[in-house]
């Protein structure tokens, strides 16, 4: 039990009647009430600081049994002479109203303070991390494939895929690369033991050009994503496996201009609207005319830097108009049909776009790398 606090005067004047106090005129009554009110104001100021004291104070003044207001009613109002009753009643009501107003005001203040204190206690440190659920990621190569597929699906290229273990016919002969062609120098090949016809690991995704045209009459408009293999000793930019996406469009009215427009569309979609395209004549056995597709250097924006050997251009991939000799292998009419093909190194495109410095990073599958591309 807390010690009883001195919140009201000792039995004080309110335990006496007005008559005992000698207050017989309305003026005296008014003065007496003023005295009580002054006492209340003084005491409320003193006792409002501590909530516990305040509760005692409130009971002392408004308690039903022995609160000051009840005592005044009992000792002052009830026994008052008829002449004074009215004045005492009015003064008592005024005092009540005053006390209630002060207490209500105080109650609001106390509650607000308590709420503030509680909030201060419970406030969350926003700088603490939340509970993160472990989420996975898709590999940068897959993300790049998806992006490339989106770009080409939007202009009517369907996606097809084919085997990685291929026959020499589809990988070379039908693409106009006979056995002793010097172009095979750039395509050192892995062979598979004990397979019919000396199967090999495809060196490019181009065999699907042939497989698709064999199966399907023109028009053809396909892309072919997949893994390809070259028997090259690996270094920072070359591996013995990498990913390609092949493209082929054949119809009765496809021209070099269409080829150029498609390639320029691709470069803008993939590298951004400011990227420019340049076609350089080149040579591939299965395209004629052939071209290397260059784009504005992504590092310097075309002004020249080490990455682009100060040319402002970066070589993206090889492409060209389908060589009519290829149509001969798939029984297409080379006099009526024309088309274009391209073969992009997806690893190279991804490395370039995202600034990946070394090819092996793509296949080490270090989660610190994988997490960088959520």
């Amino acid at each position, binding site marked *: 039990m807390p010690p009883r606090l001195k919140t009201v005067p000792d039995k004080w004047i309110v335990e006496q009647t007005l008559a005992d106090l000698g207050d017989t005129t309305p003026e005296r009554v008014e003065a007496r009430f003023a005295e009580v009110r002054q006492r209340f104001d003084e005491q409320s100021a003193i006792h409002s600081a501590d909530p516990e004291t305040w509760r005692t104070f409130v009971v002392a003044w408004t308690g039903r049994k022995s609160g000051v207001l009840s005592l005044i009613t009992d000792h002052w109002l009830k026994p008052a002479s008829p002449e004074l009753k009215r004045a005492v009643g009015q003064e008592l009501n005024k005092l009540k109203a005053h006390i209630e107003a002060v207490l209500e005001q105080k109650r609001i203040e106390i509650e607000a303070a308590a709420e503030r204190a509680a909030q201060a206690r419970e406030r969350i440190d926003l700088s*603490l*991390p939340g*509970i993160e*659920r*472990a*989420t*996975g*990621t898709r*590999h940068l190569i*897959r993300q790049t494939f998806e992006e490339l597929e989106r770009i*080409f699906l939007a*202009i*009517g290229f*369907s*996606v*097809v*895929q084919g*085997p*990685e*273990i291929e026959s020499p016919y589809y990988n070379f002969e039908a693409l106009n690369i006979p056995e*002793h*062609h*010097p172009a095979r120098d750039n395509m050192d090949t*892995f*062979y*598979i*033991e004990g*397979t*019919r016809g000396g199967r090999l*690991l495809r060196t490019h995704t181009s065999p699907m050009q042939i497989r698709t045209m064999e199966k399907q009459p023109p*028009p053809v*408009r396909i892309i072919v994503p997949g893994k390809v*293999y070259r*028997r090259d000793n690996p270094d920072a930019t070359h591996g*013995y496996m990498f990913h390609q996406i092949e493209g082929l*469009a054949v119809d009765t*009215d496809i*021209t*070099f*201009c*269409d080829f150029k*427009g*498609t390639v320029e*569309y691709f470069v803008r979609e993939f590298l951004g609207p400011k990227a420019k395209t340049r*076609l*350089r*004549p080149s040579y591939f056995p299965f395209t*004629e*005319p052939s071209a*290397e597709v260059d784009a504005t250097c992504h590092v310097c924006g075309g002004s020249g830097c080490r990455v682009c*050997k100060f*040319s402002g251009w970066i070589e993206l991939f090889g492409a060209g*108009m389908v*060589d009519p000799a290829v149509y001969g292998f798939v029984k297409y009419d080379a006099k009526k049909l*024309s088309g274009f093909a391209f073969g992009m190194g997806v690893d190279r495109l991804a490395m370039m776009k995202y600034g990946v410095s070394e090819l092996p990073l793509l*296949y080490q*599958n*270090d*989660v610190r790398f994988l*997490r960088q591309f959520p």
Partner: protein
Amino acid sequence: MKILYKWLKEFVDVTAPAPELGLRLSLAGNAIDSVEEFIAGPVLDAEVTANRPDCLGHYGMAREIAAIYRLPLKALQPKPKESSEKAVDATRVEIDCPELCGRYTARILRGVKVQPSPDWLRQRLEAIGQNSINNVVDVTNYVMFELGQPLHAFDLDKLAERRIIVRRARPGETIHTLDGARRPLAPDMCVIADAARAVAIAGVMGGTESEIGFSSRDILLESAWFDPISVRRTSKALGLRTEASYRFERGADPEMAEMASRRAAELIQQLGGGEILAGVVDVYPRRKPPLVIELARTELLRVMGADVPDRDIEEILGALGFHPVRKDAERGTPDSPAVVWACRQPSWRHDVTREVDLVEEVARHFGYDKFPPRLPPAKQPAHRLPHAGALGLLCERVVALGYQEIVEIPLVDPQRDALFRPEERIPAVISNPLAEDASVMRSSGIVSMLGALEWNLNHGQRNLRLFEIGKTYEINAQGGEPVETPVLTLGATGLAREKTIYEALREFGFADLKGDLDSLGDLAGGLAWQADGPAWLAAGRAARISLAQSAAEKEARALGVAGQLARKIAEQLKLRQDVFVAEVRLDPFLAGIEAARAVRRFAPIPRYPAVERDFSLVLADGVTFAEVDAAIRALGIAELRRVEPADLFRGGQIPAGRFSLMIRVTFQSAETTLTEAQLADFSSRIIAALEQRLGATLRAS
């Protein structure tokens, strides 16, 4: 091919500085990788494509430049001073194998002083990356880099009977080549022989026995044309690549042979004096009339889609040596759509035989940049891969479950591969691997997955959840055909949840793997689990999984395996944490996802409340949750919705040999709120069934 700027200027009056010239050459199809300064001046490094052996000499490159800048190309006119004695009287040349040697010319020089080359020659050769040997050998090299024609000089005194026979090598014949090796020859190889033995491998390398040295006086200068395929085959078989073989295998210019010989004789005389016998011994079985190729404007338009003016076409083709002549009926009308040119194939351009080849010549010199871009309208709808939608859903969910995708190279170590390969499966083995540890196409995705886990564990990354969409490879036992099977592989180790200020840590366990696979399986209508698995999974923690809801045959429903890696294997691979893996065949899984999607329909959301009842059971060890579930379901209570395990423990008050299982059963009616009486009836039936069928006792809770 290195191109010396000053050397070019001897053939074409180009004024553009070297870097600009390099760019123009690149844009016409002769990629110039770099321009470097040497004592002899700027050198352009050209990446000559395989179809352009004519550009493997300065003169050919000068022709390209002449066409680019529309400048005249200077004619070659070497005029060596010849003596009255004739070469044909001094030697003889026979070609026994005209199919391998289309032309052979021999020129005879006498009394040449073989000595070091002068500075200008040494500097030029040095600038293009060649060592200087002596004036005669240097001249043969010099002329090769000038005209693209490889030459060879023999010491005439060392040729038996001073004559040349071009023939196939004899069985067992060998030759000691200039690089110091003794090389075995085969009858499909063409050799240059004297009356006694092979003295050079045709088009590849000469022999030491007839080599020119500082004591040589008389020289037989060879300038020939050898069959490209034969040279390539020989050079590959011997593993001997030379500047000469590089040119012959791409196709030398047969018409250049005599000219190059004359040019070399002129230079040798200039540098070493001596006497040049008159004329040349020239055996030329392959002489062919030039091919006539027509180019029609209609074809140019059909391929290129935009026009090129007559004047440009004629200037370009003219400069490149095609002699275009209009032959259409509308001669005189310029730029008519009906124009047709008759062109003559130059002897140095065996790559140009068709109309489309002429189209390319015109286009590359006119400029690819001058053709306007256009996007061709699509005439058909585009399709993604057949299962792309299902695969997308699957990947989305695997990623949501916290797995990171990896991409693997499927060439693996055969010993590791064998650990995970079913015995009956024939692996696809590489016959010419680069390295032993990448010499077989993997039989399982697990082998790569463990490699990726290992890499990360070795790099301080201990909590891993990885997945791969890839393939496995094998050779079909019956037909020897390769088979590629798409698979999804999962791998996990370490913590399922790391400790945070909010939560305690938790190790990844079998239940995590099972839950993750079931989440994926939901897409295909659920998975069925069967305790069993390959030897590389831990016994008792291995399962075969299949599609639960599929009309397909049992074989087609089988998806794969999942479980904890056997300790023995983990130790072998030095994996020091528990590792959980799964491999699932993609094709049936994706088909299952599609089938499940096809039949999936809305089910009304229940309007009446669901009620749960818990039953604490004590069961004998060995009783499975599935048996409990089945016993309850067998009652056929229509209002039964779910049976879930809520708590499971052993020990404490539970006697040995038994365990406590609390199950939570949910009831719900579609028509009404269930009454206490109904629920009491369900409960008593369930208790009775579990007691009778499984010997369960109810534990007071």
